[in-house]
């Protein structure tokens, strides 16, 4: 098979698309890990719940209420993350909070259990094959000719939108007062508390933010992929690897690594497809041998 330059460019665009999702998800994981020291195994489930919020709001809610119009895409973009975030706060307040004092591994195990519950319950009511989401906004229908390829308008939007959100979060964390509190709370909770920062509140807020980002990614993904109870668990392990490669707790690291690995995966799909599934894990092993703390991480 001969590989033309435009074919490579096309795959790179697709890689960028995946990379943007990786970045959004690993960003949330990194924020939660940095602040709470919790590996949020339920992150994939929250992503899935975000997509379901969009789907249910559009298709099922109106049927339930007997009205004609459901919650459209743009409202879902706001409501989805909000709902998922609030669920996250509920979990943080009732369960996660009690685990900060014990071994961090328990946080991982708890969220693993939660992920199984969410996935199991939804599997009971929805087809694993996926339900179509038909709420794609009309203005994003169709495709844009980029010269070397025809690219769906919505995918283009999802790339730009995800990147904007990523940089907004980075700005929030690195350049604002709230962000400085967050970082202070992350690096030294005791000192932060001494300075009058409400650390438990800050932790809830962080979990809300991280989980809402996953929910947001879910809403953005809904029109592209089928909305299915398993959509999160397929993705979460890849995102874990992304976070390990980037170095946990580094926001910029998570964004850059997510994008780069998406591109790499896209390129591998052109040149040697059988490796596409594993390339990220192989990179992870190599990075660990070379820099155990990850590309952007500090050993701690």
């Amino acid at each position, binding site marked *: 098979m001969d590989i033309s330059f435009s074919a490579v460019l096309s795959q790179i665009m697709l890689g960028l698309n995946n990379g943007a999702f990786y970045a959004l998800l690993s960003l949330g994981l990194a924020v939660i890990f940095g602040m709470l020291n919790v590996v949020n195994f339920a992150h994939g489930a929250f992503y899935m719940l975000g997509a379901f919020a969009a789907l249910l709001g559009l298709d099922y809610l109106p049927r339930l209420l007997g009205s004609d119009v459901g919650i459209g895409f743009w409202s879902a973009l706001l409501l989805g993350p909000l709902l998922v975030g609030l669920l996250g706060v509920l979990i943080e307040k009732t369960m996660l909070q009690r685990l900060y004092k014990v071994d961090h591994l328990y946080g991982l195990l708890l969220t693993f259990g939660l992920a199984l519950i969410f996935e199991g319950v939804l599997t009971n009511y929805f087809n694993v*094959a996926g339900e179509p989401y038909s709420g794609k906004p009309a203005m994003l229908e169709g495709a844009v000719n980029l010269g070397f390829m025809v690219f769906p308008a919505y995918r283009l939007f999802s790339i730009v939108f995800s990147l904007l959100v990523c940089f907004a979060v980075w700005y929030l964390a690195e350049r604002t007062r709230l962000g400085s509190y967050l970082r202070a709370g992350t690096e030294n909770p005791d000192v932060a508390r001494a300075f009058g920062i409400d650390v438990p509140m800050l932790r809830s807020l962080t979990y809300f933010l991280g989980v809402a980002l996953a929910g947001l990614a879910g809403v953005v993904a809904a029109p592209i992929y089928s909305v299915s109870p398993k959509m999160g668990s397929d993705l979460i392990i890849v995102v874990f690897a992304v976070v390990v490669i980037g170095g946990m707790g580094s926001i910029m690291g998570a964004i850059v690594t997510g994008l780069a690995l998406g591109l790499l995966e896209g390129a591998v*799909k052109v040149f040697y497809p*059988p490796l596409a599934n594993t390339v990220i894990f192989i990179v992870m092993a190599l990075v660990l041998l070379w820099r155990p703390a990850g590309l952007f991480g500090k050993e701690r």
Partner: protein
Amino acid sequence: MQARIKTLVVATVVALPLAAQAAEPLKIGILTDMSGVYAGVGGKGSVIAAELAAADAGGKVLGRPIQIVAADHQNKADIGVSKAREWFDTQGVAMINDLTNSGVGIAVQRLGTEKKRITINNGAGSTALTNKECGPYGVHYAYDTYALAKGTATALMKQGLNSWFFLQADYAFGQSLQNDAAAIVSGMGGKVLGTVKHPLATTDFSSYLLQAQSSGAKVVGLANAGGDFVNGVKQAKEFGLKQTLVGLLVFDSDIKALGLNTAQGMKFTTAYSWELTPEMEAFGKRFFAKAGFMPTMTQAGVYSSTMHYLNAVKAAGSDDADAVMKKMRSTPINDFFAKKGVIRADGRMVHDMYLVEVLKPSESKGPWDQLRLVATIPGDVAFKPLSASECSLVKK
């Protein structure tokens, strides 16, 4: 020596309950995917279909009540086999039906050969079931990858769509489907320009679709099923793929998931759909009344084959697998599902298949009105001829 002492002790304990076994029920097992990718294809619907068949047979055969037991194999061959083994060994299940998923189907059929019990595959598609892996007690009932590929590929080739590119699920079932379709295409003078394999349960088909696009083939054949098929079609529309898109294994439930808007005009081969004949419609509506959805070809096959099995038990006067199997082979199947259907030496049930087309949204008269019959493919053309079978049970 030690074993003999144990024998004595345990014999007294075990002998008692074994004595009283008068009108023990005839158990039929539905081993299916209750929660996974194929739950909509088989799943609860298959259990309902089998229960319907048991009720239609009067709830009793040879004076024994018919009991339907069901289990979820979770699409895992090991879980399926251990469940089936337990059913055979301890529950006295006489026959297992459905067996959605080729991996489970092959494994359980092999176990059936070992344990001398009848297994009927309605959900699995791989032609291996009636070739390399065939068994004396295995029946492949509703469809197989050869029949699907044959019907669909032949029809498209006749329209002059003679260059193909395949997207193939990277496992035995996809391989079987792609092989069968590619053989038919090249056999009719067409060209296969390329095949790309994708892992099972892929969410992002875009890069594979781009390869298909740049291949310049007239037809993009999807040798996959369920969620993979649905995602592939949706994304092809999104990327504005100009080529003819064809699904090689499509269930009614997939069309439901895609919506007529996306699926309209697509042609595929099926063994059953309620729109096709008045008899099929009658069964579909009876099923719908119990289940709340229309049956897929797998679920319809479960009903038909369970009925055929029960009739054979009645005719044989016993549930002995050899006797029942003999009756099942010698009696033709005549019902809504098959006309003069015959179970061959290799286990293949030969019946007519149907080439159908998905309606335009404007043509649909209801939420389940999805398909139109294009052509009926006679059984002897649809299925792989017995002479070409690699089954060791076929005398040549």
